[in-house]
């Protein structure tokens, strides 16, 4: 899926967009109509205030203004805009998520998770405002143009004079734009720092609280808050200044109307009603100016959000062409001169091995020798060079192809999510997970949990011990009965007895090809191949 562009925001649900456009235009028609009625009221007042027609005109004013409110509030804001805006939000989020899921999974995110979540929230929210806002602005322009036409027709001098402040503001706001952009940037950078500190602190709350550095966190927060306060106030005040200029222009245009119209009024070629209309319309034309100043700024803010949404993930190099291949049953999986880097350093260099069906391959090595990187590269979870072959055929787009049901994987630090143990096992497809759970060695644990498979694991699986979480992740990998099982340190949090029993069961699995990072002596003893990685390569 290609990346969302500015114009995609406008082509989402074209039919609703049309309805909204028509409704907004109707609102503007009411505004223009209201002005014309006020003019008629004053003309009637100055010519013949006792005629009953004036009361009919007042009734019409009441009707038009009421209809405007109903149309704007009840119909537009209350019925149409929110479902449209939220639909757009949902679509943007889903597009982003689905393109993210197509990237090499261990390399996909370019920013901390907390930041990414805030981009999924705040920036998506920013984007959904643009189409609706644009419609309201466009209709203002149409209404404003109509009003300007009426003004020109009534008095060409007034019509032209009203444009003077208009032009001044346009130039002025262009001049202020760059500075505004800088202030805005500083404000959102400082806001992001606060958000990131909060996110990291609550995520690592146990660490911070047990280390007793909560006071230091709060001190840091106080400092970041202060900085954010000054940049946010500067940003808001500057925006208010820009708005005030526009407001000033719209008022000045009303003043200019009075000055230019004075002669005609005195001569009797303009009536008091005409003056009422001109002043009213001048304010509306000025109102239009007030929003003109914001168009550039809005588009910029939207672009920044689009950009932030794009850059939260790695660029998608595969493009649309790469479709995952459905893999046949495994006869042999091979890795050919695989190289990959981690944290900017090449940690896996030119590694090759073969995994015949039913074999066990163990990867060992010290800290930071690239064991995890090797497994990730072999599954296409990070960008790598070299070849991956399934039954001798090159695997195109390995990240999307080497998946369940053919492949099962337990990462080094498995992550569970809110829900039951069963939910966490069945990440794809339905069914009864009892036997895989047993196979993963969770049987004795489930026996003592009152709700068994329906036990709620808590946020991030925190109610389970590290060893239990690891085995739930193993059950998840076994769930679709994979041909190739890839395990990264699956016994690291297990005690000796449990670890031994686990390996006994894994070794007894028929027809499963296992690629495992482990130091367990039993696995090493039964391994068909041992890949030993060297000491940490020097940079």
């Amino acid at each position, binding site marked *: 899926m290609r990346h969302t562009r500015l114009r995609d925001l406008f082509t989402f649900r074209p039919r609703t967009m049309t309805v909204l456009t028509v409704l907004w235009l109707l609102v503007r028609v009411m505004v223009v109509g209201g002005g014309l009625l006020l003019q008629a*009221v004053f003309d009637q007042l100055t010519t013949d205030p006792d005629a009953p027609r004036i009361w009919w005109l007042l009734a019409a004013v009441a009707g038009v203004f009421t209809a405007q409110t109903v149309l704007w509030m009840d119909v537009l804001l209350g019925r149409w805009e929110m479902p449209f805006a939220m639909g757009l*939000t949902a679509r943007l989020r889903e597009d982003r998520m689905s393109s993210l899921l197509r990237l090499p999974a261990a390399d996909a995110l370019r920013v901390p998770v907390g930041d990414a979540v805030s981009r999924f929230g705040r920036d998506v929210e920013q984007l959904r405002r643009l189409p609706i806002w644009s419609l309201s602005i466009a209709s203002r322009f149409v209404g404003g143009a109509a009003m300007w036409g009426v003004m020109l027709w009534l008095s060409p001098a007034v019509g032209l004079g009203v444009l003077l402040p208009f032009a001044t503001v346009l130039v002025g706001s262009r001049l202020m734009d760059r500075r505004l952009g800088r202030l805005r940037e500083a404000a959102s950078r400082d806001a992001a720092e606060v958000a990131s500190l909060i996110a990291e602190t609550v995520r690592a709350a146990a660490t911070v609280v047990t*280390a*007793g550095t909560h006071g230091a966190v*709060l001190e840091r927060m106080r400092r970041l808050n202060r900085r954010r306060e000054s940049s946010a106030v500067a940003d808001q005040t500057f925006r208010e200044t820009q708005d005030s200029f526009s407001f000033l222009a719209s008022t*000045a245009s009303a003043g200019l109307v009075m000055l230019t119209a004075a002669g005609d009024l005195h001569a009797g070629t303009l009536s*008091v009603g005409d003056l009422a209309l001109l002043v009213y319309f001048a304010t509306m034309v000025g109102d239009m100016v007030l929003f003109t100043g914001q168009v550039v700024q809005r588009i910029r803010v939207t672009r920044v959000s689009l950009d932030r949404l794009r850059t939260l993930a790695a660029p998608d190099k595969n493009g649309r062409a790469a479709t995952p291949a459905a893999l046949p049953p495994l006869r042999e999986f091979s890795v050919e001169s695989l190289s990959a880097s981690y944290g900017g350093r090449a940690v896996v260099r030119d590694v090759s091995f073969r995994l015949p069906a039913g074999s066990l391959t163990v990867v060992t090595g010290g800290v930071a020798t690239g064991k995890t990187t090797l497994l990730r590269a072999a599954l296409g979870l990070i960008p790598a060079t070299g070849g991956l072959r399934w039954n001798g055929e090159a695997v195109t787009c390995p990240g999307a192809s080497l998946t369940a049901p053919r492949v099962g994987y337990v990462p080094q630090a498995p992550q569970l999510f809110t829900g039951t143990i069963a939910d966490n096992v069945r990440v*794809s497809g339905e069914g009864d997970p009892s036997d895989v759970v047993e196979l993963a060695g969770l049987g004795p644990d489930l026996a003592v949990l009152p709700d068994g498979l329906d036990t709620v694991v808590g946020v991030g699986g*925190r109610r389970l011990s590290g060893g239990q979480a690891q085995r739930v992740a193993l059950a998840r990998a076994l769930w679709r009965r994979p041909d190739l099982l890839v395990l990264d340190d699956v016994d690291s949090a297990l005690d000796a*007895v449990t670890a031994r029993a686990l390996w006994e069961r894994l070794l007894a699995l028929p027809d499963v090809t296992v690629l495992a990072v482990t130091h367990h002596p039993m696995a090493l003893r039964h391994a068909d191949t041992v890949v030993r990685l060297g000491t940490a390569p020097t940079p």
Partner: protein
Amino acid sequence: MVALVLIAVATSVVQLTGPGIQGRFVDTVLASGTPAVLAALGAGYIGVAALSALGRIAVQWVGGRLAWRAGNALRQDLLAHCLDQDLSFYDTHSPGELIERIDSDVERLSRFLSELLVMLLLNSLLVIGIGVMLTTVDWRIGAGFALLLVVALFLVRRLVGVAVTALAEVSARSAEVSGFVEERLRALEDLVPNGGVPGVMTGLNDRSDALTRAASRAARHQIKWPALIQHVNTVALVGGLAAAVWLYSRGAIGVGDAYAVMAYLMLMRVPLMVIAGQLNEFDAAMAATRRSRELLAIRPRMSYGTTTLPAGALTVDLEDVHFGYTGRPVLRDVSLAVPAGHRLALVGSTGGGKTTLARLVARVLDPDAGTVRIGGVDARSVDRESLRRAVGYVTQDVRVLAASVRDNVTLYAAAPDQAVLTALEAVGLTGWLDSLPHGLDTRLGVDAGLSAGQEQLLSIARLLLRDPGLVILDEATARLGPEDRAAVASAVETLSRGRTVVVIAHRLDTVADCDSVAVVESGRITERGEYRRLADGDSRLAALIAAGEAL
């Protein structure tokens, strides 16, 4: 605050002279006034506008500052409050939810206070001023306006807040979406290879739909009172004009006055339209306030005393300790004495209660019955700062912060760089540090990462920097490979010097280095003694060693 109100009042007064000038202008024109007077009136009108624009900027600046200060104070309180909670609090409140509460909700409030409240203040003053000015035109118009305002206030009071429940629902659904996104982004590596992609998409879809439904329902409630204000304004305009027409036809007021009445009422209309357009933020801010209050109402069960612990190695004594989770006993009748400077290993199969025992010693949990003493003092009576300084605890999963290497070692505490470097050197991470692009300022998770073994070393460096007298290592060396276990063992050795250490170990070679071993099974300590003595005899430890074919 006083300055804010003064500027606001001044701004409103300035704005209020505008329509009056317009009325005078009409009268002057009709009374064949001289061009000089007309020009002066026109220029006066523009001058008034310029002054009120300046006033608005000043109000924004002063008001914005006040509002941000209040919002920041609340954010600070909420974070402090969360950090004061028991750790079980974090089992039921996801990071996504807490971020929403501490950051997004408060931001909503700040924005409301800094932008909308200022606007509300300005415009309330303006509305009152309009009433006063209308009274000067004719007292009957003023009285009618006042009556209408009273009725409107009464109606608005009833309608304000009808959307709060609906908005709370929106916020809950929105937090659910954030929580879902957060957990799935964190688990990308688990989900993609194991075929979880379609499930993520349906899950996200369902939650998005629920959010859309809630938001659409809330929108229908939210427009109720802004719409009412608009209607009131229409009534005021039409009523005011009708009154002006009636008074004019009876000769009570002039055309200029009638014109001014309209101008005043129109003056009220434009700002009201702007406010009404943003008023839904008012309800959103009220809902956010309610949620902040709810969060602040949660009280921790754990409390602290005032006793301080001395520096240096500390004793640990457990007396008849019982502990259970929701009725399921985990530890029963556990007593244990660890002398100062002693190294104790806890062994036993998973689920036997080792971790719970470690948590009790680290005072992450309090026992249901019995006492935990640290340095001879009941742990519950020790001062919080002193306790955390004296007791170090390394859990099974090391949390690496998306922050600089320095912050990752100090956990945000102030410490000289030299101390941080020394701690990293002691655990053998100097080589890794040298390979980073920005040294201690390198941001982890963005510019660089850590392998699981390095994470473990980092967590030991954190302890070394803080220098606690009692250290609890929960499966701390579990993820290390054989080649580097020696290096970590020596780091642990350094850490153990002059400290009391309780370690949960699976590797029996680390157990052998300890002064004594306690076997924890089914919530009891079934055996306690020296490794060598127990390992050779007919003991539980010997049975464990045989079963695990330990090294």
